[in-house]
C-alpha cells in the first residue's frame, strides 16, 4: 500500500512548513507553544507520547480563545449577533471535519466527546436495535479497550457472540481467518484503522468490502488514523467511522461519529434532552433532524470549534505529506534504534508501508515504567503500560511495553534524544 499526497493537498507556495513537498517539522514546531518549554530539570521537552494525546497548535488554541473572548453564546438558540456567530462557528467546524475526511454530507457528522463516546453511541443506539441472540460481532485482537468493552456489554445484554480476527506475531491482521469468520454472517465488523499500540495500518477499505460482501455493517475506529494518514470516508465506504479530536491537534472533549444518513435516521437517540428534539409534549417527543438528534444538551462548543481549526490546520499541511513525514521518521528511527540498542525488543510490523508512527519496545531486564521514569529525567515523554490494549499484550505475552509515538512536530532530534535516553536507562540499571 502506498500513500502519496492527495491531489487535493493544497498548493504550498510560500509556506515555510513545507519544502519540496515535505513537511519541515523544525518549522512546524514553532506553531506549538508547549514544544518551546523545558521540564523542571531544565531539559527541553521531547514529546513522544502523541498517540496518547497530541499537542495543540496556536491555530487551535486561538480559535477557542477567540470564541470565549468574542462570541461565547449557546448554539441554535440565540436571536442575537454573538448567538448566531456561535452557531455558525459550530456548524462551520462540522463542515471542516466533513471536508477533511471527505465525508459525503456534513450532516452525517455527529459531534461527540471522543471516539469512545462515538462507539458507545453506536453500541447503544444501533446495537440494541439490531443485535439479537446468537448474532456475531467480529472484532480484532488489537483493539483498544474503547472498541472492545462496549461490544462486550452489548453482547452480554443481547446474548450475542464476539469473534476476533487474530494477528501475526509482528502485529498484522490475519485476513485469511477474517474470511472464515465472515462465514458466521456477522451483523457487524468493528476494527481499528491504525493500531494504537503497534502502529499497524489495517486495510480498511479492503476489510470493509469483504465485510459488506458477507452482509455485515462496518465500524472503523479511526482514533489513530485520522491524525496520521489520509482518511477518505467515501473511499473506505464503511458504515460508521469514529475518531477523537485530541489526538489530531484538537482539544480534549472533541470527537465525532460519521455514519451513513439512513443509519443515523433509523437509529433511536442515545442521549435525550434539549437540542435533540423537534417537539416535546408531556408524554411524547419528536426528534430533531440528524445530526442534532444525537447531540443532546449544550455541546462543548469551543472544543468543536477547536476541532474544526485542527482539521483546517492538518488540511493545510496535507495528510499525504503528514503520512510521508511519519513514515520517513520511522524509516530513520527503527534502524537507528536497533543499531544503537541491539538488545532492545521492538514490536509491530517492520514494513513501514503498513505502519504508522508508533514504536513499542522493551529493554530486557528493565520494567517499562522504570524505562519511562528514567527517560523523563532526560525530558523524554513516552508512555509505559498496556496502552488500553490488555488483550493484545496478553496475545504477545507482554505485561507491558514502552511506546514512543510521533506527530507532525516530531523531529529526528527527538528520536536521537530517545536513543540517548535509552543509553542513560541502561547506565542507571547496569544492563
Amino acid at each position, binding site marked *: 500500500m502506498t500513500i502519496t499526497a492527495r491531489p487535493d493537498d493544497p498548493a504550498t507556495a510560500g509556506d515555510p512548513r513545507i519544502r519540496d513537498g515535505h513537511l519541515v517539522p523544525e518549522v512546524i514546531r514553532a506553531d506549538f507553544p508547549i514544544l518551546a518549554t523545558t521540564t523542571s530539570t531544565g531539559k527541553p521537552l521531547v514529546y513522544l507520547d502523541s498517540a496518547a494525546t497530541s499537542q495543540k497548535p496556536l491555530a487551535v488554541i486561538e480559535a477557542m480563545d477567540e470564541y470565549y473572548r468574542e462570541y461565547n453564546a449557546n448554539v441554535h438558540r440565540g436571536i442575537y449577533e454573538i448567538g448566531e456567530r456561535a452557531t455558525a462557528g459550530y456548524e462551520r467546524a462540522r463542515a471542516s471535519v466533513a471536508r477533511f475526511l471527505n465525508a459525503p454530507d456534513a450532516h452525517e457528522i455527529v459531534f461527540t466527546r471522543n471516539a469512545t463516546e462515538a462507539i458507545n453511541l453506536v453500541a447503544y443506539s444501533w446495537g440494541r436495535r439490531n443485535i439479537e441472540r446468537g448474532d456475531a460481532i467480529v472484532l480484532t485482537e488489537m483493539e483498544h479497550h474503547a472498541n472492545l468493552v462496549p461490544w462486550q456489554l452489548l453482547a452480554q445484554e443481547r446474548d450475542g457472540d464476539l469473534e476476533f480476527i487474530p494477528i501475526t506475531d509482528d502485529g498484522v491482521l490475519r485476513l485469511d481467518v477474517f474470511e472464515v469468520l465472515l462465514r458466521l454472517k456477522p451483523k457487524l465488523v468493528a476494527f481499528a484503522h491504525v493500531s494504537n499500540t503497534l502502529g499497524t495500518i489495517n486495510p480498511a477499505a479492503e476489510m470493509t468490502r469483504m465485510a459488506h460482501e458477507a452482509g455485515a455493517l462496518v465500524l472503523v475506529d479511526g482514533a489513530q488514523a485520522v491524525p496520521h494518514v489520509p482518511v477518505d470516508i467515501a473511499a473506505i465506504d464503511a458504515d460508521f467511522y469514529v475518531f477523537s479530536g485530541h489526538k489530531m491537534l484538537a482539544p480534549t472533549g472533541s470527537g465525532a461519529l460519521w455514519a451513513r444518513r439512513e443509519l443515523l435516521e433509523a437509529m433511536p437517540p442515545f442521549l435525550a434532552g434539549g437540542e435533540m428534539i423537534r417537539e416535546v409534549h408531556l408524554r411524547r417527543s419528536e426528534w430533531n433532524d440528524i445530526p442534532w438528534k444525537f447531540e443532546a444538551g449544550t455541546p462543548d462548543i469551543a472544543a468543536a470549534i477547536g476541532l474544526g481549526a485542527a482539521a483546517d490546520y492538518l488540511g493545510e499541511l496535507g495528510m499525504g505529506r503528514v503520512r510521508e513525514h511519519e513514515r520517513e521518521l520511522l524509516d530513520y528511527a527503527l534502524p537507528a534504534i536497533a543499531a544503537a540498542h541491539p538488545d532492545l525488543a521492538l514490536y509491530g510490523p517492520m514494513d513501514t508501508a503498513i505502519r504508522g508512527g508508533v514504536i513499542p519496545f522493551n529493554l530486557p531486564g*528493565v*520494567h*517499562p*515504567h*522504570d524505562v519511562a*521514569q*528514567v527517560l523523563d*529525567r532526560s525530558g523524554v515523554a513516552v508512555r*509505559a*503500560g*498496556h496502552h488500553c490494549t*490488555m488483550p493484545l*499484550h496478553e496475545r504477545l505475552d507482554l*505485561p*507491558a511495553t514502552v511506546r514512543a509515538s510521533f506527530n507532525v512536530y516530531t523531529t529526528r532530534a527527538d528520536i536521537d534524544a530517545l536513543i540517548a535516553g535509552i543509553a542513560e536507562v541502561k547506565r*542507571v*540499571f*547496569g544492563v
Partner: protein
Amino acid sequence: MDDLYRDYILEHYRRPHNFGVLEHANASHEGANPLCGDRITLQLRLSDGKIAGVGFTGRGCAISQASASLLTDEIKGKPVVDAAAMTSQDVLDLLGIEISPARLKCALLSLDTLQQALAEAAQPAAASAAGPLPAAEGQTA
C-alpha cells in the same frame, strides 16, 4: 542524578531478599497493578502469632520489587499484629526515596498484598466477603 533509583533500591530490585516460593506457607495472596503489569505473590508462614516465614514471587518495576524485598525483610519474625498495623508511610520510610503520585501504587503493592494475605488468613471461611482489616485504617494512601 537519581533520587529514585538509588543503589540500594536497584540492589533490592536485582537481588530481591526473600524471593522465591515458601515451603509450608499457610497464608498467601496474589496482588497486581493491572495498569502497570506489576504482580506479586506473597506467601507467609504464620506460627504462634508471628510471621515465621515469608517469601514472594512476581515481576514488576524496580520500585514494586524493591518495596516487596524491603517489606518482607521488615516483617520477618514480627508479631502478626505488628505486621498488620504497618502503614503506607512505614513502607515509604523503608524505601527512603521520594515517590511521585504516579508511582505510589508500585511502591505500595507489597503492603496491599500483605494486608490482603493477613485478612484472608484471619477469616479463611469468609475470605471473599472479608471486610477491610482494622490495619487498613492506618493507611494514608
